């Protein structure tokens, strides 16, 4: 009898129903309409990654072509880093 009782209890504890699993979900993961989600979580766009990359390109090209281009590139890198840092997200 004891063995039967233990086995029943063990099996009950192992059987987790879908409903119980659903109840375990945190409250902030409840369904939100797709439209609301699209509005809320649309990835924010930014110029600065592109600007910083092109500034890096100009700097390296300056190393090859002319020091003036190099220094223009350095100034653009500085500007892009500042712009990136100050951008509101």
């Amino acid at each position, binding site marked *: 009898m004891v063995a039967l009782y233990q086995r029943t209890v063990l099996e009950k504890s192992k059987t987790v129903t879908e409903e119980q699993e659903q109840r375990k979900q945190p409250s902030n993961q409840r369904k939100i309409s797709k439209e609301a989600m699209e509005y809320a979580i649309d990835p924010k766009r930014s110029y600065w990654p592109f600007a910083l990359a*092109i500034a890096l390109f100009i700097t390296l090209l300056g190393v090859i072509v002319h020091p003036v281009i190099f220094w223009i590139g350095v100034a653009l890198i500085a500007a892009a880093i500042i712009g990136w840092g100050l951008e509101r997200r």
Partner: protein
Amino acid sequence: MATRTITEGISVARRRRFSETYIGEWLMTTDHKKLGIMYIVTAFFFFLVGGVDALLIRTQLAVPNGKVLTPEIYDQIFTMHGTTMIFLFVMPMLTGFGNYVVPLMIGARDMAFPRMNAFGFWVVLFGGLFLTSSFLFGAAPNAGWFSYAPLTELNTGCGTSGVVVCTPGLNMDFWALGILMLGISSIASALNFVVTILRLRAPGMTVNRMPLFTWMTLITNFLLLFAIPSVTAASILLLLDRHLGTHFFQAGFGGDPLLWQHLFWSFGHPEVYILILPAFGMISEILPVFSRKPIFGYTFIAWSGVAIGFLSFTVWAHHMFAVGLPLVAQAFFATSTTLIAIPTAVKIFNWVATVTGGKISFRPAMLFALGFVAMFLIGGLNGAALAVVPFDYQVTDTYFVVSHLHYVLFGGTVFGVFAGIYYWFPKMTGKLLNDRLGQLQFWLMLIGVNLTFFPMHILGILGMPRRIYTYPGNLGWNELNLLATIGAFIIAAAILVFLWNFVITLRSGQPSGTDPWDAFTLEWDTDSPPKPYNFPVIPIVRSRRPFYDKKNPEIADWKTATH
């Protein structure tokens, strides 16, 4: 109500911002999916550029005493072929797949650092344009993709006495600066992947439940973080030598020529695994889906990837057996190189066990995945042969090595990439690539790869040096070289078939629906292509096949499996 009407009126009257135009949207995007596509398209463009380089090389070598290219141009073409294929095709292509697929696979809404992600892409694009623009200056890099110093020094140190001109001109400056730029991109994207995978997984997705592509991407990006600084340091030292009068690699001035080789290959060999591990991950996703079975030996595949990652940092000097290393060093590197074959073989056995007894569906993605296993096996076996020092002495710097690396990187990685393209194309576009054209492409590529690279084994054993400009007609190399050239053009035909398939699918391809393969992992549990936010609700993960569980609740893995 009035307020609403006014607001609508304003929005109609307002001019569209640049960021809302089609070009602005792509230029300013930080969405991992768009960036993933941009990476893949850019990488494919450079694949075509590197492919044209390869065809030029093979045309030059098709017959003895070839005169298609001048020796100077030939040097530039083979250097740029290697550099382009490794740094501008394979690395960005795998980063592109990781970008697109990994956040979806782990149930995340984006990468951890979206702007840094965009920065990584733009640096790859501009870095690639920078390197390729060297052709416009008539000064493309010309000393091989490994750019051995002191050959690459500006004007001193590569001769035995006096001032000897080594590599004057801007050629190696383009290479060193381009590699610096691409290294910045790699570090940025590697940091992003590591943080994303460690911090943004869906609830319930323990590391033991991560999809294997995610596992391999994680390992690859750790490798990048530790390997890239080495080649970056080497490039900076080379630039200092060339322009600021230092002598890091010049024996005559107290430098050490082997320092370059150690620095380069301590990056270069982990790099080989950086180029192949994500492809391991891709086919570990594809084989189970098209065999209708869970992956066999998940834990072994995942942890053998970790083992490969660690061991990849202990094998670099097997590229240097012929430079005169001490015997103990040769023994160490021969042993470690042989050891790395063990975790690699573990993966191959697991893939074979996965498909064994499965209900196999020979769609193009599966064909390329199976082709990958076969071709990579050949590349692995001839690689193990190169770990044997006396054999390596005989074939070092011959076409045997060219054959080995192409079986790994073309037969392996490129087949893996095409498997990934056929598998995830419906996810990215909502359309199915044509199966018949896919099968035609696969068979053409399989024949082409073996026709091109298998004869190179024999050419290497016959003594044909790699990077050679031309050869006389009396060495017994003629027919094998011609075969290799024919094979290269068959590969080119296969790529044309793919491009045709791509174009007609985009124009009038069959809609795929959201889950065309009845797949197992989370990226298929959303629209195709997915909305910007990926998932309306972040999924809960209870097993290694969460989407399979959702579709088959009565036999879900989490009810039966222990992980």
